């Protein structure tokens, strides 16, 4: 990397401490960022990275400590201060208004609210110039909802650059990108460094950290536990530092695939909003096998998940479970057919926040197992919930606790228990470990692997290519509603899958690039 000027820190965090009630989210975090430097902030989910950034951007006030930018302390609790001082943030969950145009999203907040007119022409010209300079191609007049995930991220970066950010903070920027898009992002970041910007790169992907950073800071349980020059460390050491030798990933045995349990042939579904539906896909899930579905989000994963969940019926094509065609397809029939469904969003779809654990446990089975002629069997339900809490190691105050009080990992364990207790034939796991800490990740993966070994057919949908490649016996790639052929474990490199993710693998079809 070029031109690190460590004599002059552009960003300094001093002794930042933040507590939420009994929980300490950040404890005495201190670091400097030099001009032209790339710092990787490495840490698991729940390590306190997001809280730290919320403090930097004035959304939270630190209990102790101070942030300075270019030598000047930032007033706490003022969201504008960091932006005005030249710090720009690229959020992991994009903060864009879908119904507005690119330029409107970028200009928002950049002109004073009392200004008499929006200067649209000047704004678009500046955006075009920045696009050119940083190789961030995007049409300023396009509506956000019409953009791909990669394009949306470019808008996020442009938002920061438009306000003349000198320090860029990127929160898990590659989580949603194809390998090729990640390369393009890195090219943009290198360009930014050449132009004298400084970067904080938040991630838990070690190879990327190694590729882009000068220095690595490891955050664990809210504390900075290690600092390494990137040249002096390696992935093994960083991994150990990040996780702290607590748990290990489950060992996968060899798969022994059995009969096809779910097969789709030439199947299509209607689009969901701006996301595509399925377009004539062929897919077979076999007993005793984990099928991984790779792809950039918004390419038809939701359509496939909704189909298998019973929320959507096929528009055309055949849909068979264990050899017999499905009819009257609803969530109830899906459950009755032995499909375990782990939804993408456990807060919105998987659980009812203000229901207690008992009620959440029986959401799918109250009609068949915990009631008689319309009368609830609450005693049985509670006993069931208690047993499940024990079996699946759900940490909670008891079956009467509201589920909103549980951590993501414990919530996911409860959902796992809810669906796995019924000995399912088919398991749909949509982003099952998103946002979980490493212990919970390993737990969920272990359970899925065990279910596979017990003979279930598992469909694992994830945007995390590493997760897909680590766990899957066979892999499909989904892109714009189309499904790639089946690739056996170990036959494809990430870059090759990336070609399919970008939609460039579908040769011989009308939409081939």
């Amino acid at each position: 990397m070029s031109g690190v000027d460590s004599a002059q820190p552009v960003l300094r965090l001093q002794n930042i401490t933040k507590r939420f009630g009994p929980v300490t989210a950040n404890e005495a975090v201190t670091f400097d960022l030099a001009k032209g430097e790339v710092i990787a902030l490495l840490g698991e989910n729940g390590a306190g990275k997001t809280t730290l950034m919320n403090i930097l951007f004035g959304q939270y006030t630190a209990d102790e400590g101070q942030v300075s930018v270019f030598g000047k302390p930032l007033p706490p609790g003022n969201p504008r201060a960091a932006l005005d001082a030249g710090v720009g943030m690229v959020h992991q969950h994009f903060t864009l208004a879908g119904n507005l145009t690119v330029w409107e999203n970028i200009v928002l907040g950049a002109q004073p609210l009392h200004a008499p007119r929006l200067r649209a022409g000047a704004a678009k010209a500046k955006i075009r110039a920045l696009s050119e300079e940083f190789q961030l191609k995007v049409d300023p007049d396009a509506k956000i909802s019409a953009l791909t995930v990669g394009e949306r991220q470019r808008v996020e970066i442009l938002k920061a650059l438009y306000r003349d950010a000198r320090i860029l903070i990127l929160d898990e920027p590659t989580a949603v990108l194809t390998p090729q898009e990640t390369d393009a992002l890195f090219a943009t970041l290198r360009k930014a460094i050449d132009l004298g910007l400084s970067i904080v790169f938040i991630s838990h992907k070690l190879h990327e950290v190694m590729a882009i950073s000068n220095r690595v800071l490891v955050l664990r349980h809210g504390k900075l536990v290690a600092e390494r020059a990137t040249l002096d460390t390696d992935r093994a050491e960083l991994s150990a530092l990040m996780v702290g030798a607590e748990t290990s990933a489950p060992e996968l045995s060899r798969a022994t695939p059995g009969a096809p349990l779910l097969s789709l042939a030439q199947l299509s579904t209607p689009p969901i909003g701006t996301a595509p539906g399925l377009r004539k896909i062929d897919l077979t899930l076999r007993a005793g096998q984990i099928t991984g579905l790779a792809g950039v989000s918004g390419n038809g994963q939701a359509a496939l998940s909704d189909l298998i969940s019973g929320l959507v019926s096929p528009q055309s094509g055949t849909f068979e479970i264990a050899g017999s065609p499905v009819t009257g397809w609803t969530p109830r029939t899906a459950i009755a057919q032995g499909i375990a469904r782990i939804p993408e969003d456990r807060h919105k779809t998987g659980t009812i926040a203000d229901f207690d654990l008992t009620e959440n446990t029986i959401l799918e089975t109250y009609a068949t197992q915990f009631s008689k002629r319309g009368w609830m069997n609450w005693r049985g339900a509670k006993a069931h919930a208690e047993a499940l809490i024990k079996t699946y190691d759900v940490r909670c105050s008891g079956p009467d606790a509201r589920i909103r009080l549980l951590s993501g990992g414990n919530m996911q364990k409860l959902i796992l228990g809810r669906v796995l207790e019924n000995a399912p034939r088919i398991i749909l796991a949509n982003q099952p470990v998103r946002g979980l800490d490493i212990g919970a990740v390993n737990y969920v993966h272990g359970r899925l692997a065990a279910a596979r070994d017990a003979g279930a057919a598992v469909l694992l949908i994830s945007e995390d290519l590493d997760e897909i490649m680590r766990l899957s016996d066979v892999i499909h790639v989904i892109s714009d509603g189309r499904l790639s052929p089946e690739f056996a474990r170990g036959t494809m490199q990430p870059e090759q899958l990336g070609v399919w993710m970008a939609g460039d693998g579908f040769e011989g079809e009308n939409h081939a690039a």
Partner: protein
Amino acid sequence: MELFEILTSAAFWAAAIRIASPLIFATMGELICERAGVLNLGIEGIMVAGAFAGWIAVWAGMPLWGGVSVAFMVGMGLGGIHSILSVPFGLSQHVVGIGLTLLATSATFYTYRVMLPEVSTPPKIDAFQPFPIPILSDIPFFGPALFQQTALTYLAFILVGVVSFTLYRTPLGLAVRAAGESPAAVAAQGLSVTAIRMGAVMVGSGCMAVGGAFLTMSAFDSFFFDMVNGRGWICIALVVFGAWRPGKALFGAILFAAFDALQIRLQQTGIGAVVPYQVFLMMPYILSILALIAMSRRAEVPAALMVPFNKGER
């Protein structure tokens, strides 16, 4: 053909514009609130309060425009109550709105009884008089229809222009629209979602109150308990009908008012002798429901309408 005669008379359209005016004020007010992400069901009560406040201020000796200002301020105040409960505290906008309508209505009636304990018929004020605009009012048909209205009606039309310009052409309007689409995007750019939404609700509520004041200060010259009579709810339907756009909402309000003016006139024709008058009186409400049904699949609802925003939360 009677219908043809009615529809081509300038007097009919002048009446339609007059009927539309309070709806335009209140619809713009509701539109501002909803574009920022807040459904304001306090509208009915705010209109009642505005109608009373403007009228009583003039009755107490203030000039007409002073009365309009008082109505606007009262609306802002009531909007302030709504916005504190619905924005930073994020309470159900349904419950807060209904509660505010009950509060504003009963407080108005209470104040009326306290201030005018003895009267059986409410006093009259010298209301806004038609103000023909020179030259324009002489144009055949359009002159009498459009340009011989009261100053408050002209203000209603100016308001549509101001709202439209502000929403689409100024940084403030962009911030308001973004707050209704994606509060997280607004917060990420260093703006306060709370301030933007509260401001929008207060200004919008002020406009609603002026819509109410139009009834007592321009359409009539006195205050009656049931004079707003569901107009607020109709305006909520008009916002939907107008697809949350000021121009379309204006068109909807005039169209709606034209139907209302038409039913009043039809009551005096041969049809009115056969059909019960209640059927005519139902028409505005039925039309509103039909408008909602017609737009149900098409309208682009602000994505964050009725979604509270708690910063730092994802």
